[in-house]
């Protein structure tokens, strides 16, 4: 069953086309990685899927329903959860309250209904000891974990992760990969943008390459990584 389908989606800012006729599908339960150089339009593609931006052309279907013109808030309620590339915690709220907002509003439940769920997520993402600390005081790793936790608190069917491993040490990165693997193992569909390639390839089943807003390739991670297009994009072209 198809979880998410993009058909000929385009988005421009003035003269600059940042998403150019993108089409692809993500089956339910799959983890898809998205790679591409800086400025390739990866985050824009995410914003189009989550509804933080609206597509100029094309359509986006989620679980068979056309969500092209649905707001970010409603898409969250239908089961699309996201993390932001630059962590965007609610700084004055505590870690627990950050999750509470997501859990109560993202699922329309009362605080007491979701208390144990939130605590459970915080245990899994190893933030439980920091539950009562204001999010503004967290370290980078903790902020990344909070991004992940908050997205999880909406109980998404589709989880979008935007460069969640960037800027972490190798050990921190491994711990985070483990957490993401566990979430994936529970059947959550994942789309993950990442520059830390070994983190990405250790989780995803399929890889999509984006350049100039266009889908250059999509398929088996090993094949994609050894393709000439990716070699050129990542290691440069010979003059």
């Amino acid at each position, binding site marked *: 069953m198809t979880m998410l389908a993009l058909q000929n989606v385009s988005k421009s800012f003035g003269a600059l086309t940042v998403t150019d006729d993108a089409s692809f599908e993500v089956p339910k339960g799959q983890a898809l990685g998205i790679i591409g150089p800086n400025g390739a339009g990866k985050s824009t593609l995410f914003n189009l899927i*989550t509804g*933080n931006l609206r597509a100029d052309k094309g359509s986006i279907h989620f679980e068979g329903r056309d969500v092209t013109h649905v*707001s*970010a*808030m409603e898409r*969250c*309620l239908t089961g699309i*959860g*996201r993390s*932001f590339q630059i962590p*965007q*915690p*609610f*700084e*004055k*709220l*505590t870690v*627990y*309250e*950050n999750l*509470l*907002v*997501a859990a*109560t*509003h*993202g*699922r*329309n439940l*009362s*605080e007491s209904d979701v*208390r*144990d769920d*939130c*605590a459970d997520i*915080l*245990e899994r993402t190893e933030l*439980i*000891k920091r*539950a*009562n600390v204001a999010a503004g005081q967290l370290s980078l790793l903790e902020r990344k974990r909070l991004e992940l936790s*908050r*997205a999880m*608190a*909406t109980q998404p069917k589709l989880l979008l992760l935007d460069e969640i491993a960037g800027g972490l040490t190798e050990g921190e990165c491994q711990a985070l990969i483990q957490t993401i693997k566990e979430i994936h193992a529970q059947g959550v569909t994942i789309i993950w943008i990442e520059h830390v390639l070994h983190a990405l390839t250790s989780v995803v089943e399929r890889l999509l390459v984006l350049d100039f807003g266009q889908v250059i390739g999509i398929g088996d991670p090993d094949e994609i990584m050894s393709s000439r297009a990716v070699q050129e994009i990542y290691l440069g072209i010979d003059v």
Partner: protein
Amino acid sequence: MAYTVTTQTRASRITTALGAVLIVVLFALPFFAGRGTIQDMFFILTMLVLAQFWNLLAGYGGLVSIGQQAFVGMGAYALFGGVILWGLDPVPAILLAGAAALVIAVPTAFFAFRLNGAYFAIGTWVIAEVFRLLVAQWKTLGGGTGTSLPRDATRDMWFVELIKEALDVRSAAARDILAYWLALVLALVTIGGIYWLLRTRRGLALAAVRDNTEAAKSVGVDAGRMKWIVFLTSAFGTGLAGGLIYMQKARISPDAAFSVTDWTAYVIFIVVIGGIGTIEGPIIGVLVFFLLQSLLADFGSWYLLTLGVLAIAIMLVAPRGLWGLLSERTGLHLFPIRRRLIGGRLTSSEE
């Protein structure tokens, strides 16, 4: 072990206890205080209500309005209209004042929400001016020169006779005491209501929208609806306060009831000086404001000049206001809204 959530702190338990004592003292005040004190307290309490609602709007909702005088004025005029035209008793007419403010808040929001940030601020001001000019056309209520509450309406007001007998005072003093008690109830309900709102999941959403609107939308918060809720709530409360203030004054004119200085500038200064975005801030602010007014009352415009300069200085030096400075140093919160998760794997951790 299961998790539980609490918002209480030791300070808040002490506050609750002291607050209960304070409330009893305040209710009992007319039994031992003079008429001047009662009038001062009425002024402090009504300004506190206006300040709490502006703070809800700007400090929590991010909606910086300079048009709160629209709701004070409309509320006041609705009360006068209800009393003069329909023969209502002034006391229940206060509810009419709130309702009228709520009614005009809908078109106001419809226009003002089309403007962002600073333009929203002046937009609300323009709309308040429109209401002032429209009300000035209302000839049965005195047009531009205004009118007074009919003598028999104020004389026969609910509870006045009761208070006269119980406290053995003249009817003018009894009306002041009645107004004071109503203001006290309004202030307590306002503070309690706002505190309650902030502790619900809507209050949490409000804080989330204030911290980061985009992220809030992405976790399912309806940011647009939060704006409406906050705007309408604060219009309703401001209208009630407006009705009450003019019930006590018993005389109204469009220029006074829609005064930007009296009903918005003062209120903004109170909140900024005390500390925006907290319940404690306006309480501190209104006390400082009253103190300054008493000290500088004889110096005319120097008083407002000082207030303006003080507000500028606070905004630049201590943008979280006096209460912000204090709570930053001491970690003190009299009205804690922060939920703390306890139990489970947190049992061993320090409180």
